[in-house]
């Protein structure tokens, strides 16, 4: 809300307070001042001038060359504007001038020198719309005067950010009240005086409210012998300083009163209201009307309208209709000042996609007592401006006005709640200034403070006036709580520690993706959760797998020519079927990489090391050749406790192509919950061996399709107390091995805890291993 400080000053004397101090004090008492500015802040070196001569430009048909008197000095200005004539007064931005959006420097326009610019209203920032041509000032304008002085652009205007609980502060009066309380000064609002000039409103209009729940109060007055004219300068200026465009005296009065009282108003051309009737009702299904913005709107029964005897003439509390708009020829008007249900206005405005100054106020809930006061103020202004005569009488259709709330007032509770020692007197004064009626053990809440409901609300009123920063800071000493992370959170840390130490960078990606991601991954569409109102298709569903996100991150890096990329994410996925219609949110660990020397075994190594960091050394691994995301010959599934714990391998070339990655990429997806379930993190010390180990090499020739895992499984199964470990050190295929076979070499280590092993002991185990391998895998000893 923009308010010129001089307007506030009408209600409370703040002339001696600097704008900076004013802003700081109001901000700290709860009415946030975003900034204080003058409309002329960004207009420098612009003066009034008069066009002496307009000549044709020698080389351009669309340009003219003007001689402009800027007060004792004549400057030449080239312009493309056409709306001026010799003798007109204009605003001249001289060489070196600053305008809100640009700086003006002398220059050449098609070979003719130009020493400045004649400004339009929008160039001066006086209007947001694009102005037609330059601004023509009155003929008696003195020359060479700074335009800020001439147009009075030096007013300090405060830009308030009002929170949604304080619709009363969306008004000059409300903010003046807060100002008075903040500075401890007097404040009063005069009751408007309406001079009635005879007649009876009942002869002009009747009002019927069919839906009092949506319209608790409807007040109106009639103004006859209306003279539509421009508003006086003072009113125009206040409106413009407040960011409202001046239209004519009647429309301006409704806007002026809205700003001043916070009560939106509307003026109808009475002649257009058919049947001499106002009916406040819900729209009929499919009923149509065109609003003042020129939009044709189809209505439904949830929308409250103001109708005449035949048709809707306004969307209640939102915007008037074209059919009843004030014209230059309007002779009689109906001023409406009503109270509409906030929730209903909000819903209708949202449905219509039409948020106005009016609807923004109604939807926060306005004081039902405001309507008649604002109406009288509008009529007072009509008299003051000589804009018409007020027909005697008011129509006020009003549901029973709720009693003012009375709530408990307990200074002890407030002090205990705040941790303060504020005396009762301070509290009473503050509340009284805020127009509460203070009693012994209770307060009566003013009707414009619907936000006050209980002790905590009173505590806030006291606290903000006492000063939040005067409340002593204390450290809560209660029951000591043992802080810390859960097992799951510690596991997440372990994953991050392990993978970062292995060279992987953590990534964070969006949880929503495009449904096209499944095509890109070669996957069938999953039964995913859709967002009803997404920003776009790209982000319209919740991911059921995070592989796509990881591949997109690889693609970004590939695009930026990052050469060796190793990434991981602790990613949440979302599947249907959770409790109460919610999702099953599961975490998966996605590891993704490409780069030099990166192959299937690189990603497998990472997975193995991650498993080891969770104390998991035994797991089943099977090839997976039918996973459409992955390469059929370089992909594996790891199982823990017979459950699928991880899939890892090389990404299928056609998937890579979809992601435009022109490098072999490797990905692993690990089930976080299962990893957590199978972890063995308790560590126990094993004594270091006292006796030496015996190492033997075992070189075998096995058929090509035997994988090393099956060899290892057999070695493990051979009963022996002395086999300590074994490791693969060579796999060879080629000339020296028969076609269809490969050579596999292991190094085996034997050790006993209590003695030095003899050759015989070791040989006997080696023989057993070899015979098993011969029998089960058709292995031969390589000679």
């Amino acid at each position, binding site marked *: 809300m923009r308010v010129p400080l001089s307007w506030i000053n009408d209600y409370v004397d703040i002339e001696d307070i600097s704008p900076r101090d004013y802003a700081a004090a109001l*901000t700290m008492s*709860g009415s*946030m001042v975003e900034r204080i500015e003058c409309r002329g802040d960004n207009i420098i070196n612009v003066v009034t001038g008069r066009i002496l001569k307009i000549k044709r430009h020698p080389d351009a048909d669309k340009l003219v060359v003007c001689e402009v008197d800027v007060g004792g000095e004549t400057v030449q200005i080239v312009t493309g504007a056409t709306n001026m004539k010799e003798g007109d007064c204009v605003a001249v931005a001289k060489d070196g001038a600053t305008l809100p959006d640009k700086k003006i420097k002398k220059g050449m326009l098609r070979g003719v020198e130009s020493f400045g610019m004649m400004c339009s209203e929008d160039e001066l920032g006086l209007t947001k719309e694009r102005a037609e041509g330059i601004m023509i000032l009155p003929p008696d304008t003195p020359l060479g005067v700074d335009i800020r002085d001439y147009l009075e652009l030096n007013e300090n205007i405060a830009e308030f950010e009002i*929170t*949604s609980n304080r619709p009363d502060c969306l008004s000059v009066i409300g903010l003046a009240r807060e100002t008075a309380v903040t500075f401890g000064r007097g404040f009063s609002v005069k009751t408007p005086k309406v001079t009635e000039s005879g007649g009876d409103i009942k002869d002009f209009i009747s009002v019927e409210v069919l839906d009092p729940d949506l319209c608790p109060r409807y007040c109106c007055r009639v103004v006859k012998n209306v003279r539509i004219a421009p508003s006086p300068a003072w009113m125009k200026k206040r409106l413009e300083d407040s960011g409202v465009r001046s239209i004519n005296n009647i429309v301006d009065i409704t806007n002026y009163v809205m700003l001043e009282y916070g009560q939106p108003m509307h003026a109808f051309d009475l002649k257009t209201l058919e049947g001499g009737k106002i009916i406040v009702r819900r729209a009929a299904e499919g009923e149509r009307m065109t609003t003042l913005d020129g939009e044709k709107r189809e209505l439904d029964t949830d929308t409250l309208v103001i109708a005449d005897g035949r048709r809707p003439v306004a969307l209640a509390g939102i915007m008037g209709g074209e059919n009843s708009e004030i014209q230059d020829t309007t002779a009689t008007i109906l001023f409406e000042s009503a109270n509409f249900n*906030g929730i209903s206005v909000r819903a209708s405005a949202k449905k219509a996609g039409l948020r106005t100054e009016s609807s923004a106020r109604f*939807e926060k809930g306005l004081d039902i007592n405001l309507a008649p006061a604002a109406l009288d103020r509008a009529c007072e202004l009509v008299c003051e401006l000589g804009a018409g005569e007020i027909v005697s009488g008011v129509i006020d259709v009003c549901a029973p006005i709720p009693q003012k709330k009375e709530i408990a007032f307990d200074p002890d509770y407030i002090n*205990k709640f*705040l941790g303060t020692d504020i005396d009762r007197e301070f509290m009473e004064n503050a509340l009284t200034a805020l127009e509460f009626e203070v009693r012994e053990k209770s307060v009566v809440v003013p009707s414009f403070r619907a936000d006050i409901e209980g002790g*905590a609300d009173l*505590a*806030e009123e006291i*606290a*903000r006036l006492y000063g*939040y920063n005067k*409340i*002593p*800071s*204390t*450290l*809560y000493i*209660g029951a*000591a*709580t*043992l*802080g810390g*992370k859960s097992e799951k*959170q510690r596991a997440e840390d372990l994953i*991050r520690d392990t*993978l*970062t*130490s*292995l*060279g992987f*960078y*953590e990534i*964070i*990606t*969006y*949880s*929503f993706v495009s449904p096209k991601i499944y095509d890109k991954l070669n996957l069938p569409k999953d039964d995913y*959760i*859709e*967002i*009803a109102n997404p*920003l776009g298709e790209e*982000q319209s569903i*919740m991911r059921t797998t995070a592989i796509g996100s990881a591949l997109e*991150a690889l693609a970004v*890096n590939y695009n*930026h020519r*990052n050469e*060796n990329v190793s*990434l991981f994410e602790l990613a949440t996925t*979302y599947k249907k079927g959770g409790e*109460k*219609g*919610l*999702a099953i*949110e599961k975490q998966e660990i996605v590891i993704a990489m490409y780069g030099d020397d990166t192959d299937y075994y690189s990603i497998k190594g990472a997975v193995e090391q991650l498993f080891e960091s969770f104390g998991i050394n035994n797991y089943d691994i099977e090839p997976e050749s039918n996973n459409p995301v992955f390469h059929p010959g370089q992909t594996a599934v790891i199982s823990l406790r017979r459950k699928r714990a991880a899939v890892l391998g090389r990404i299928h070339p056609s998937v890579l192509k979809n992601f435009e990655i022109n490098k072999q990429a490797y990905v692993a997806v690990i089930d976080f919950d299962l990893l957590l379930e199978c972890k063995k993190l308790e560590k126990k010390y094993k004594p270091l061996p006292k006796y030496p180990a015996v190492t033997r090499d075992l070189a075998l020739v096995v058929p090509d399709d035997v994988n090393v895992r099956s060899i290892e499984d057999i070695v493990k199964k051979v009963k022996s107390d002395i086999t300590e470990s074994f490791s693969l050190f060579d796999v060879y295929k080629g000339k020296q091995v028969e076609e269809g076979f490969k050579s596999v070499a292991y190094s085996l280590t034997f050790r006993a805890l209590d003695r030095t092993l003899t050759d015989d002991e070791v040989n006997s185990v080696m023989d057993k291993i070899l015979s098993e391998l011969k029998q089960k895998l058709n292995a031969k000893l390589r000679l």
Partner: protein
Amino acid sequence: MKDRLIKIKEQASAALQNITSKQELESFRIEFLGKKGCLTEALRSMGGLSAEERPAIGKLVNDVRSFIEAEIETLSDRLDKEELLKKLEQEKIDITMPGKKRPLGKRHPLTTVLDELTDIFIGMGFTIAEGPEIELDYYNFEALNIPKGHPARDTQDTFYINDSVLLRTQTSPVQIRVMENNKPPIKIIAPGRVYRSDAVDATHSPLFHQIEGLVVDKGITMGDLKGTLDAFCKKLYGESIKTRFRPHHFPFTEPSCELDISCPACNGSGCRVCKDEGWIEILGAGMVHPKVLEICGIDSSVYSGFAFGIGLERTVMRRFGIDDLRLFYENDLRFLRQF
């Protein structure tokens, strides 16, 4: 004989002067002390001496031998040292050449700073709570004193799944879930993803992170809220930071406030970072609204509490001087490597 020995000694002394390598030294040793060396030969010829002469000459032979042996050892040591020095000299390298680095990954900057924040709160006795991202309207709004039709809903443009299910717009619903399931004292923080239907630009993202905090116990005051958050700010931004609590409005807290810190860039004198205000807003907070406590089945006449919410992205952006929110979710290594 005696003369001969003295001459051998003199010859040896002279020869030693010219030796510059271990090889020459070995030849020298053989020449004088070897089986066919001159001293051995001199010894052999002792057979022709008389019994009276023998002891004196014998002693002389030994003296000369000892002398030569000692000289050889001294010289050998010296040559060893020289050789080592030469070798070390040859092994000199350009110590400014780049080091060989092991690959090292890093946490995402959002995680790094989140860890820092959580560590501070854990140090103050907080535990970490979690809640679903796809949430019921009830938890995200209604139980937080934001009923349907409430204007506060407009300030949080919401992604809906259906009428009653949405993507949470704040981490505050975790407060409700925690209060429903736990008896006070409660002292938690709840970090997590939240969603608002804001189009992506340098300062907006449809997905971002918040850290919610909640303390509920008997006798919790607004002074406790201030003290806790003061301590947090001092730990995060340094002891010299100043804090300012400014009135604000949240439907689920009363009184509500926003917390500003003195601008770390200009120490409060005003600069571009703080838009000349000298203060930077870092979080919203307040005393838990008694209605919210009651909704969760906590007696508001016995218990009170405070809550706060911190925007993680903005905290991280301030920390590292990042000016574009989008970088967090692009995951370009050139960005991730910097933190």
